[in-house]
């Protein structure tokens, strides 16, 4: 079965990103397909490579990046939500006159249409939020 997952909260502050990750991992282990993980609202904050969590804690951002690499999962960060919150890739940084970017490997920035497309193309949309 084909899933799209929406993550609406950032790392650590809410469990939403953890639950979404565990759900995605379990789905992949069962042979299902993750069509897309869409990061919206504060969920875009999962996509920064500048986090340094305590060594005795999980690394939420790296965990997503590794899942993307291992299983070729499409991690999409909403551009409008990312602009409000300061998540930028090189293109976005250039376009908005920023002197740095912070996006983590495996994430790409795109539009809200990607969420709707996820809803259309997938068998199930599962939302994790606050």
């Amino acid at each position, binding site marked *: 079965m*084909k899933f799209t997952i*929406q993550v*609406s909260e950032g790392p650590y502050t809410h469990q939403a990103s953890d639950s979404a990750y565990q759900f995605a991992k379990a789905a992949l282990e069962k042979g299902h397909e993750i069509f897309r993980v869409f990061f*919206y*609202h504060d969920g875009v904050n999962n996509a920064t490579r500048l986090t340094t969590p305590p060594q005795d804690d999980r690394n939420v951002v790296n965990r997503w990046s590794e899942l993307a690499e291992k299983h070729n999962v499409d991690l999409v960060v909403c551009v*409008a*939500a990312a602009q*409000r919150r300061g998540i930028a890739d090189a293109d976005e940084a250039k376009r908005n006159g920023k002197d740095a970017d912070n996006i983590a490997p495996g994430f790409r920035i795109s*539009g*809200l*249409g990607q*969420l*709707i*497309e996820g*809803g*259309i*193309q*997938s*068998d199930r*949309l599962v*939302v994790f*939020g606050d």
Partner: protein
Amino acid sequence: MSEEMMGGDIKKFMYVNRKAPHGTVYALESLEVVLIGAAFEQDVSLVFMDDGVFEIVKGQDTTGIETKNFSNTYKALEMYDVEKLYVAKESLEQRGLTEDDLIVDVEVKTAAEITALMEEQDVLLSF
């Protein structure tokens, strides 16, 4: 069922709005999805329930808190062919509100009717 739809059939999308505006961004960002989503020409409906009914209360003026007043955008939904707006009867009543307090024309639905509407959907988006 969803397999059959892959070819370009239309899916029923419902936006479930349960949060008050201004205190958090969910109402505004939900509306942004609706506007972008309209281009996909799916069968779209919005339901306002619990504190979500406050999103469409008339006379909102955010000058004093200096945030964005997006309440008038709900009136523009019609132009995007988003015309199915449902409001939970019990949620209105609990808040001492009536249809006259709302900025857009809506269909007021009982909890049982909203249950039935939800069951008809293909995709539920929760905000």
